[in-house]
């Protein structure tokens, strides 16, 4: 699965996700990636989120929408919200994966409970960061 979230100069955030799913899937299985609210969500009231991981868990937790709700309604920082969903809720449920997010105020965040996630971030006035492993 791949995904990108962005904030533009007009202050608009957006999110996109694309995937081939899981190897040897059957029965027309669809994971979270194309499901708005589970694998992808964006609202200028909070943030934009794209997910990757064991899709069934992300669907049950409505991960992308819930992260936005935590930011909008509970006032969590973006990093605190993504960590709550990935490091606490997803892990507690037994799911694996990660998320990326960006907020209208320029906050960027990522969180994953696997040993690695291919990732990169860049922003106006900030150097690009590229990572693979947890300790990158």
């Amino acid at each position: 699965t791949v995904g990108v979230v962005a904030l533009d100069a007009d202050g608009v955030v957006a999110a996109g996700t694309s995937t081939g799913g899981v190897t040897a899937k059957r029965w027309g299985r669809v994971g979270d990636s194309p499901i708005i609210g589970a694998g992808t969500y964006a609202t200028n009231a909070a943030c934009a989120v794209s997910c990757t991981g064991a899709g069934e868990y992300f669907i049950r937790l409505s991960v992308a929408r819930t992260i936005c709700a935590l930011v909008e309604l509970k006032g969590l920082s973006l990093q605190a919200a993504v960590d709550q969903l990935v490091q606490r809720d997803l892990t507690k449920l037994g799911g694996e994966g990660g998320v990326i997010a960006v907020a209208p105020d320029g906050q960027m965040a990522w969180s994953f409970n696997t040993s690695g996630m291919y990732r990169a971030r860049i922003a106006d006035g900030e150097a690009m960061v590229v990572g693979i492993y947890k300790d990158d």
Partner: protein
Amino acid sequence: MAKWALVAHGGAGVIERAHLRPEQDAAYREVMGRVAQAGAAVLKAGGAALDAIEAAIQILEDDPLFNAGRGAVFTAQGDIELDASIMDGGTLAAGAVAGVTRTRHPISAARAVMEHSPHVFLGGEGADAFARSQGLEAVEPSFFFTERRWKSLVRELERQGLPIPRRPAVAPAKEDARTALAHDEGKRG
């Protein structure tokens, strides 16, 4: 406060230093950096977040290192079925496709659903047909084939005790150099 920002991912999973050779590590980092720079170029020029996302994801969909577009994993039947979605935080407009098999860039199909249909989510042959009706590039399913994903499917079906489908007749006979670089690193999604 940053005027613009972009974050990208190429999948998460069991990816450890000991599992990636230096050239594999470098290949993934190069692509992720290129993806970020491509999106940043759109944003620096005053482009919309949606345009940056589409441009960046198209690169990932075309790169056989990643499980999206060309290089995606196989179903148990030996097909490749692609899903994508996109959402505009300014308007809450959204679009998604699932199970497309002939649209080169599923992310563009999702955007077309969002911008040029009254719907949010289209699936299967209908989604491919809609993408074609919007002028998006259609390809033969063999376009998405990579040898390493085929081998992963065979291993997984053997593990599950399921029948191995016939190898696609039009599949490339040889692996290209970049795909051969990558191994099956146990990604989750």
